[in-house]
């Protein structure tokens, strides 16, 4: 029997070579879903370009054949952004993984989409530098995608090191043309900033899930590794008090990495795992397509015992110094922080819950976090409600979420919480996690319904889902009609054939 002629496959093979094009069902299956509630859908082709030329040719081919294109970087997205909605060509960018222009003079680096945090951190450390990593992100995540998706890092508490770490970007537009944003748009211009020349297009490509183009290169800020670091903890019985203390700390611009965890998330961070599990957590294979292997009963018991001994809310402040006279900087900040704590009535402690070495664990997580991935094993899958909220609305949100949980027979104690002040507590990024067992359809259905109802409720209480994955897109754009309308008009202008990740956002 002769093989069916497939012009798309042949075209792709002509661009990247037959070995880098995949149509085998078992391969397509591995790109068809993630652990989120997003319905599974296989792409028709998976292709792995190695460079810009190949990437541009793929986009041009897709345009000729009106074939959807789904960019895919590291496969560690847990929110369905890279799950096809209409089939098409899934472009796996993992082979575009070069690190260039790593500068210890200007604390910056250029990465391609396949570069992972583990990979970059290793290279940066050779020059005494580090990239800042969001606390909930696995070491195997793509640096470029994570920054493009605006996920705040613990240092986002400080201005300028917030979510605006991108200096310049290069994008393949839906037409296949390459487009440079920021200063290097002028040939030879240094990677100094993302603005202009004329109009700030970089913000248009953030959180776009590849719908306006594929970002294939990004220049980022780095920081030196801390020379001296002290980490303090403060206990609170309710989230409102923790937020109030955090606001006072940020008002005086103290500390660098600062955040708040509830007892569930802090217990997740410190609970021990066996060596094999730890290895899979560190190499980013712990969470698979269907989630993680649920914890053993013994592990669950250890976890429960641990969290019972922790305060409901823990505020973490890290004082870091990497430049001149670091001991003196940490010393004055510690004294200032202690003065503030004494005046405001909260206590600074070296640990909480009697955990030994907690500061060391936190310090490690600041460099290359992996421990929070353990939470996926609590029941198998984790579903984050990720949003921004002002400090005064978080208490209300937490309370309402607990009440709604009861209606779904979901234990309020099983909601993980991570709260990250951004830009000196001007706003707070919140991740409230719900858990479900992927092998139990009823449980998945119940938690999915809880997740959706909670999302609507939280928006009405002031939560702003700035990264509108899955069902949030409809919820957010319904409330921002003209905004969505103009996103669509720009999409129609840039991508008239709607080939770039169709079905995502409001497209």
């Amino acid at each position: 029997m002769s093989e069916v002629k497939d012009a798309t496959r042949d075209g792709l093979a002509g661009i990247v070579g037959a070995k880098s094009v995949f149509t085998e069902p078992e391969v397509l299956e591995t790109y068809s879903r993630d652990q989120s509630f997003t319905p599974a859908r296989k792409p028709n082709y998976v292709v792995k370009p190695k460079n810009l030329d190949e990437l541009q040719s793929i986009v041009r081919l897709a345009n000729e054949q009106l074939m959807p294109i789904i960019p895919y970087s590291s496969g560690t997205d847990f929110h369905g952004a890279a799950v096809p909605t209409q089939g098409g060509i899934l472009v796996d960018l993992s082979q575009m993984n070069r690190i260039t222009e790593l500068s210890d003079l200007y604390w910056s680096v250029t990465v391609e989409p396949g570069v992972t945090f583990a990979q970059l951190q290793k290279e940066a450390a050779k020059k005494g530098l580090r990239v800042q990593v969001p606390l909930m992100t696995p070491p195997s995540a793509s640096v470029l995608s994570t920054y493009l998706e605006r996920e705040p890092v613990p240092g986002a508490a400080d201005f300028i090191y917030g979510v605006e770490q991108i200096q310049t970007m290069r994008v393949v537009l839906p037409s296949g043309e390459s487009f440079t944003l920021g200063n290097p748009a002028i040939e030879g211009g240094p990677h100094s900033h993302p603005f202009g020349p004329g109009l700030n297009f970089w913000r248009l490509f953030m959180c776009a899930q590849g719908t306006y183009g594929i970002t294939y290169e990004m220049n980022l800020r780095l920081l030196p590794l801390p020379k001296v670091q002290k980490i303090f903890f403060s206990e609170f019985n309710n989230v409102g008090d923790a937020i109030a203390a955090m606001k006072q700390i940020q008002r005086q611009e103290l500390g660098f990495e600062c955040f708040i965890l509830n007892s569930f998330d802090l217990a997740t961070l410190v609970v021990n795992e066996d060596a094999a599990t730890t290895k899979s957590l560190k190499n980013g294979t712990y969470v698979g397509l269907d989630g993680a292997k649920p914890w053993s009963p013994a592990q669950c018991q250890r976890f429960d015992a641990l969290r019972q001994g922790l305060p409901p809310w823990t505020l973490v402040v890290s004082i870091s110094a990497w430049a001149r006279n670091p001991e003196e900087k940490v010393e004055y900040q510690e004294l200032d922080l202690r003065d503030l704590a004494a005046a405001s009535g909260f206590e600074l402690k070296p640990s909480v819950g009697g955990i030994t070495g907690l500061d060391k664990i936190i310090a490690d997580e600041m460099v290359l976090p992996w421990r929070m991935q353990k939470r996926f094993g609590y029941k198998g899958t984790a579903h984050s409600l990720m949003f921004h909220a002002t400090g005064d609305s978080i208490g209300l949100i937490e309370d309402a979420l607990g009440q709604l949980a009861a209606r779904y027979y979901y234990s309020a104690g099983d909601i993980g919480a991570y709260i990250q002040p951004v830009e000196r507590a001007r706003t707070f990024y919140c991740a409230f996690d719900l858990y479900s067992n992927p092998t139990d359809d009823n449980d998945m259905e119940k938690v999915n319904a809880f997740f959706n109802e909670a999302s609507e409720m939280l928006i009405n209480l002031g939560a702003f889902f700035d990264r509108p994955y899955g069902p949030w897109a409809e919820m957010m754009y319904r409330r921002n009609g003209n905004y969505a309308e103009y996103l669509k008009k720009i999409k129609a202008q840039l991508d008239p054939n709607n080939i770039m990740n169709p079905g995502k956002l409001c497209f």
Partner: protein
Amino acid sequence: MIEPHVYQAIAEVVGPDFVSDDRATRECYSRDPHPSVTVRKMNKDFATVPDLVVLPSSTEEVQAVLRIANRYKVNVIPMGSGDNLTGVCIPKMARTMTMDLKRMDKVLEVDEENKTIRMQPWVSYARIQATCMKLGLWNGGTPAAPSSNNAVSNVLAYGGEYQTALAYGLGIRSLHSFTVVLPNGDIIRTGSHGMSREDPTYWYGPGPDLKGIWEMGAFGGLGVVTEVVWKLHSWPGGDWPIEEEYGHPPIPKNHRFYWYRFNKPEDCIKAAHALCYAGIGIGCNIPMRSVNAMCGETHLADSFKRYDEGYYENFWIYIITAGYSPRQLDYEEKVLLEIMKENNGEPLDEERRRKMDNYNFDGFRSGNFVRWARQGIYAITAFGRGPVEIMAGVHELQQSIVKQADKPVPSMNSTWPWYYAYDRGYWWVDERDLYGDQLDFARTMLPLVVQVIRSTPDNPSGYWTPNEPHGAWFGPQIGPNFHLMLRDMKKVLDPNDIMNPNTLVFVRPKGKKPAGQKEG
């Protein structure tokens, strides 16, 4: 000419007192010290004079006026405080209406808890600071511009080169979210502002953030921003100190101000780099000696004299530190002194330090800075971006062009660029200016300005802010795709090309061309 029925329709929206086709009134909206405008005025180019001036008072009035303009194809130039110095608000073609936003001057709300201010576009840096500093907050800086400068139009046009951008970033990073009216009357609100006008929760999205499309040089070419939410920062300075002696204001409390001079440019550059990467201070700048000469002297003649004598030198650095405790200020001072010692920095002598007292005020709020414009003709030739180490190359490039002038160039044009540190010193802005001391000199300056701008590909710092004459630089060196992206945005947001046409985006429908330019 604008037809009477169009005039009447606009008058019905804003009221007859707030629209004018009076010749004298319109003439006031046709001037600017940029040589391109000066030359046009000297050539009696009547297209510099708008046909109509309108002063709306609300988002709704802007919306109604734009709908009328869009229907009758009247060009619209929105204007803020009117102190733009690059000609972007000066009409280039007939049938143009200048939309003066000065009636939209209200501070709507200060949210102390979440550190934001919500306001209309015609609010100056001085107003924001007067409103917020007493609450322990401020906007993070001020550019070396008049304090009457509208904050919104300044950052939308030029990004906000604050003297304290070291700590707080370019002003554009402080733009939280806004309301923009498109020429067809549609209103877009960005960030959480889109869900509720009062909601200051977040400044991006949802999803792709549209805000950037109106930022950094759109020059009202894509709509009119009518309301903004602006980010505020902690201000430890308390009440603004009283200036008891003119020209010698005190430094706000919990702040320190240092001036150093260097004999060698390489020492200055090394010290500047080290200061920024040491993580201290809120501002670190290397000001132009021409500006120092202008600001440091009460009389212009003294400025020239002292400049020519070399009293004001290149390679002075000023550093501003702000502390939330004396411990912090002491730590930062210790680090600063170490760096200066290592790099042969000398504290500025008392006499010249006293001349620089104006900066004690202007470093935060801008008062006497407007003195630098006293020469009359003035052109920013670039706001480049790059590391401080390329400062010498930037200077040499500009000087190589200035030397080609066909007339003697006023001495102050030999100065090094102004270097502002921003974003914690990751990078610096290099601002390069050219001055003319008499009107006629504009004819000599204009080709120099064009040539400097055209040298962009050879410029070590790049260049982003489009100044007049735009055609000289928005050319192929920027990259054809950037140009095409600009056109794409124009097609989506202003398909009739009524918003400040031929200023940023060159979408020229057939027959639509600047006055005096031949088709082709």
